[in-house]
């Protein structure tokens, strides 16, 4: 299976678009290397803004660039943009309704052994509570390229979180993505797994494992956390058991969003799989996933437990 980085797909696509649309800007906070924006900075220096290690300032500057009629993408570690500059995202971007895209890279636990200061595991909860902010967690590089094309043409503020390392490609260039519309990857009647970001691949792995045991699950890629695809959630509830899986705290993330819908519109048995209320276990992404049951085996186990009850 082909593996590639989502951040690399984003920056390559943004660079290609920005060569044609001179209003597209990239901002970094001493993060051009880690975001993979070096080529952008070298080839389009007049559309690149280095802000130094100052995330609050970077988000404010981006709002000002938008005020000047430009289309800025602020790019850096998700952990800092979702926390250090949260108030700038709230006041200068969300409430002021400025066309600023916040691009959080190396999100979730993908900084691995760098530890919890560098993990971003509350960002979905925070960003989706802000009025008008769109929130996306792409699951692979192909989807990210399509999402970048959408973001470059949209006038709405948005937050995007992606990981760091290469991840398996789930989609092909023929696949089509619409904000507000989840992708149903697998159709099974026994249970439904709704996942986002890197968890989507592991959900398909879980489906393969369960298939061998005669359990058939539906898998939804809810890359579009906000706007959320309520129709897909209602359809998933038709199986009788919904498991949400996310690389995020179990509070206020994808599971919370799905529970908000189902508890009010179609109470359904569900379980929220994510990172528990503790200082997170440290290791490589896959090691952390395995520790918390966020890999194929762990997700399959959670489905079997859910079906027993």
């Amino acid at each position, binding site marked *: 299976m082909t593996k590639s980085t989502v951040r690399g797909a984003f920056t390559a696509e943004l660079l290609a678009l920005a060569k044609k649309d001179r209003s597209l800007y990239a901002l970094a906070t001493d993060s051009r290397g880690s975001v993979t924006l070096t080529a952008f900075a070298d080839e389009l220096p*007049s*559309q690149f*803004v280095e*802000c*130094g290690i*100052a995330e*609050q*300032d970077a*988000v*404010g*500057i*981006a*709002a*000002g*660039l*938008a*005020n*000047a*009629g*430009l289309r*800025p993408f602020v790019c850096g570690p998700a952990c800092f943009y979702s926390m250090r500059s949260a*108030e*700038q995202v*709230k*006041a*200068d971007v969300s*409430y*002021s*309704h*400025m066309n600023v895209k916040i691009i959080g890279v190396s999100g979730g636990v993908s900084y691995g052994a760098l530890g919890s200061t560098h993990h971003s595991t509350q960002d979905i909860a925070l960003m989706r509570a802000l009025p008008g902010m769109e929130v996306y967690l792409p699951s692979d590089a192909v989807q990210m390229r399509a999402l970048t094309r959408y973001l470059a043409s949209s006038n709405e503020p948005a937050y995007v979180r992606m990981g760091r390392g290469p991840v398996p490609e789930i989609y092909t260039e023929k696949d089509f993505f619409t904000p507000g519309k989840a992708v149903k990857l697998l159709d099974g009647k026994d249970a439904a797994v709704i996942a986002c970001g890197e968890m989507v691949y592991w959900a398909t792995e879980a489906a393969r494992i369960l298939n061998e045991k005669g359990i058939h699950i539906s898998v939804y890629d809810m890359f579009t956390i906000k706007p959320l695809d309520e129709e897909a959630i209602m359809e998933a509830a038709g199986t009788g058991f919904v498991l949400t899986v996310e690389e995020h705290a179990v509070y206020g993330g994808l599971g919370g969003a799905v529970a908000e819908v189902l508890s009010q519109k179609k109470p359904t048995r569900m379980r929220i799989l994510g990172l528990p209320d503790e200082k997170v276990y440290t290791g490589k992404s896959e090691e952390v996933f395995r520790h918390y049951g966020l890999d194929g085996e762990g997700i399959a186990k959670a489905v079997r437990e859910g079906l027993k009850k």
Partner: protein
Amino acid sequence: MNANELARIAARTRAEALTMIHNASTGHTGGAMSATDILTVLYYDVMNVDPKRPDDPKRDRFFMSKGHSCEPYYAILADRGFFPRSELATFSQAGSRIIGHPNNKVPGVEVCTGALGHGLPVAVGAALGAKRTGQKYKTYVVMGDGEQAEGSVWEAAMAGANYKLDNLFAVVDQNGLQISGPTKNVMALDDLAAKWRAFGWDVCEADGNDMQALLDYFHAEHKQGKPHCLIAHTVKGKGLPFAEGKPEWHHKVPNDEQLQEAYRALGVEEVDFND
């Protein structure tokens, strides 16, 4: 416009701002009064803005970073014709867009401000955007002196100098007071002008309640290659005999007698919010 005409407008603006605060029983009286002369000079003389075209790309940009001093800002925007004067009567009322901090649903207001330390970074972005795209507009931002304790101010100060934004004017309304008392007792600024100079800005100081001094500053030749900072020495509560220099007037509301006393001191007979 000459200094005397501007002073008359500022007196009327103060009376209107105080009436808004009185009517709503809420507001930030002290800082509103200290900043009124700066706002008056900018909106009636210095800045290129067209109330009929609030989104004109060529407009000068203004950011009220000390957003709590919004009352004279709204009064001026209404008087200039950005929105109906009658809306000033809805200040801080349920459902009004004329709320207690600048709201960019109001024509003429660029972004929502009031969380301190936000205005300068946005102003840096607006000024940098103009530089990068060859737009000729200028960018103005007004900050408070208490606000200077916010770290994000200094992040933006560095960026403004780094990008040599000589199209950017930051005014610090240095009234020497903040909500808890004298700024020197809350978080001492010491030589504020020296701090801005050390951050690479072209710094001047002037009496921020003296129209001629403000006119002289904005009409002077300004250095190229550096952003500009005016430390405007002001009096908190300026123009109100009962409030001048008194920290408790940060957000105290005048009673009926004080409102009349203020009108007399300002030489304003009455205030109405008719269109």
